[in-house]
């Protein structure tokens, strides 16, 4: 079996493969639903209705998509430069830490000043967190996959330590949780009385900004060059290590914004269940989007829809909601195959 490069194709032909990937994913999920003794069609209908069947459902999906857009962008940016940041989860939590450190009364400033400062601080915290593994990679050749993965565990324990120590809410009845952020540090709701908050707008703006960076700027060009062929990039005079550092800062910062937006926009305080694996789902989101920043928005909404829909479905149909995780992971694998097949022709023999 051989793989041969294929000439560029029309948009329709390129889109055919991702669609195929989704069909395969749904097919596999249908098998699992059958195994659970339910009817796939009605289960999928329930999922779809739970994700987008009502204003409530739709807003819930967009709310859930918000952190996924940030982590998806973080991964997309990093993977473009082949910096394997699997640590978005940790960066998210550090962003949350920065938010409650600054947002619970330490800085008694008005909202218009406080929120941007907290956001920037959160980004800095996340960026610095990824800088470590990036430096170990460029200076010592330590694989960043393993270091970022291990950091996820370390940071979660660190956060747990903070929540039982210096950041502990004295009125929290002993629960490991931080105090609530002050009102000026809260991201307002987009629609009064609903959960969707301005973090979603920030996510969209970030996606557009990242898209501009990747497509239009020299930095984005450098990142792509480094990702595709670091040796050729270095030969051409691109400072590969410096580009990787910039990538790490951008990626870590974006992931940390997820933590900022969840704390300041949704939860109000920091707990150990701030993220049900948004950092890992971000990898799926980025791959589904083929690392395209604007695609990340669509992919995040899609993935969030599956999670929200599956939650609703499992309450009524009795199929475990973990089916959402299975579908998301399957989508990741089918998608990478789809991308491959859209670029290469498989020749048997």
């Amino acid at each position, binding site marked *: 079996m051989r793989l041969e490069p294929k000439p560029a194709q029309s948009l329709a032909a390129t889109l055919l493969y991702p669609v195929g990937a989704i069909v395969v994913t749904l097919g596999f999920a249908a098998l699992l639903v059958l195994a659970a003794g339910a009817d796939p069609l009605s289960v999928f209908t329930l999922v779809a209705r739970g994700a987008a069947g009502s204003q409530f459902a739709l807003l819930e999906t967009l709310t859930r998509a918000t952190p996924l857009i940030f982590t998806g962008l973080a991964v997309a940016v990093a993977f473009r430069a082949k910096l394997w940041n699997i640590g978005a989860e940790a960066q998210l939590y550090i962003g949350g830490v920065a938010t409650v450190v600054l947002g619970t009364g330490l800085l008694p400033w008005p909202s218009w000043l406080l929120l941007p400062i907290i956001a920037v601080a959160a980004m800095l915290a996340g960026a610095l967190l990824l800088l470590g593994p990036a430096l170990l990679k460029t200076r010592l050749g330590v694989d960043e996959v393993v270091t970022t993965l291990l950091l996820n565990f370390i940071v979660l324990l660190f956060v747990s330590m903070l929540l039982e120590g210096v950041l502990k809410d004295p009125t929290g009845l002993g629960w490991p949780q931080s105090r609530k952020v002050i009102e000026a540090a809260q991201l307002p709701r987009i629609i009064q009385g609903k959960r969707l908050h301005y973090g979603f707008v920030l996510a969209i703006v970030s996606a557009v900004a990242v898209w501009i960076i990747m497509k239009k700027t020299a930095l984005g060009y450098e990142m792509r060059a480094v990702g595709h062929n670091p040796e050729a990039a270095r030969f051409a005079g691109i400072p590969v290590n410096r580009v990787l550092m910039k990538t790490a800062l951008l990626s870590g910062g974006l992931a940390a914004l997820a933590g900022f937006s969840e704390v300041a926009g949704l939860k109000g305080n920091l707990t150990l269940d701030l993220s049900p694996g948004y950092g890992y789902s971000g990898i799926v989101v980025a791959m589904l989007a083929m690392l395209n920043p604007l695609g990340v928005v669509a992919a995040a909404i899609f993935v969030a829809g599956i999670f929200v829909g599956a939650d609703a479905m499992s309450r009524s149909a*009795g199929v475990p909601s973990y089916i959402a995780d299975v579908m998301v992971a399957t989508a990741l694998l089918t998608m990478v195959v789809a991308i491959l097949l859209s670029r290469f022709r498989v020749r048997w023999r």
Partner: protein
Amino acid sequence: MQALDILLTASFWVAAIRIASPLIFATMGELICERAGVLNLGIEGVMTVGAFAGWFTVYSGGDLWTGVAVAAVSGALFGLLHALLTVPLGLSQHVVGIGITLLATSLTYFTYRLVLPEVTSPPKIEPFAPLPIPGLSQIPILGEALFSQTPLTYLAFASVAVVAWVLYRTPLGLAMRAAGENPSAVEAQGISVSGIRIGAVMAGSALMAVGGAFLTMSAFNSFFFEMINGRGWICIALVVFGSWRPGKALIGAILFAAFDAYQVRLQQLTGGVVPYQIFLMMPYVLSILALVLVARRATYPRALMIPYQKGER
């Protein structure tokens, strides 16, 4: 002084060897994969699958060794999926590995919830019982530590010997090492690189799964969510730390486990002065340190993570 006395107690070393056992299995598994040129980041998920499969087989009435076999086969199946995507298709081993981990983990949780929808506390099984080796287990400290363990621990040590023998003493091992170094050497001698690599990833994944099964069948007696808790990632660090050699990796795993057992005891000793999270962090911090320590002289298998297409040089 108390802190050092711990090192002289047999119970400490018994615990260290027990903690090392799953790591030894999984480290050997990862080592085989990487020696053949494939980084297997599916390890964390495959261990989860193994832990569940072994436990569930026994829970539903199977024999303990059947459980081990079922775990190995399920691991090998996920290994096959990983290998098909990364070897003939040459997809990114990073992305596929993470994908396999996500898939294997979520499928396990899904299945767990499917078969046990109502349980709140995870049901226990009757695990492997310690099987002291007569005579040897009487030797103070060392004998007790090594020879009063469960059969699965003995199997873990045996797996090191087998992996070492296969890699260095058999024609198959020759082909595996060559596939990880210069696959064209393998193809030029009429052996299929894909075949070798797929086989290595399947065998390695089977070992990882048995490592996971150790946790449910020889350590904790039940399956619960997130029980692998990063052990897979630690094993990847151990492979690097052991310079891709079974013996060195074994020593690394035991050292690591000893640290881990030590921190638990130290934690009890310090009695809450130091936050317990600091102790729990130690294994992960230690893994990163190990990677940093050997980074300068690490000689990776040269073809690691590089897909191979027939006729390519």
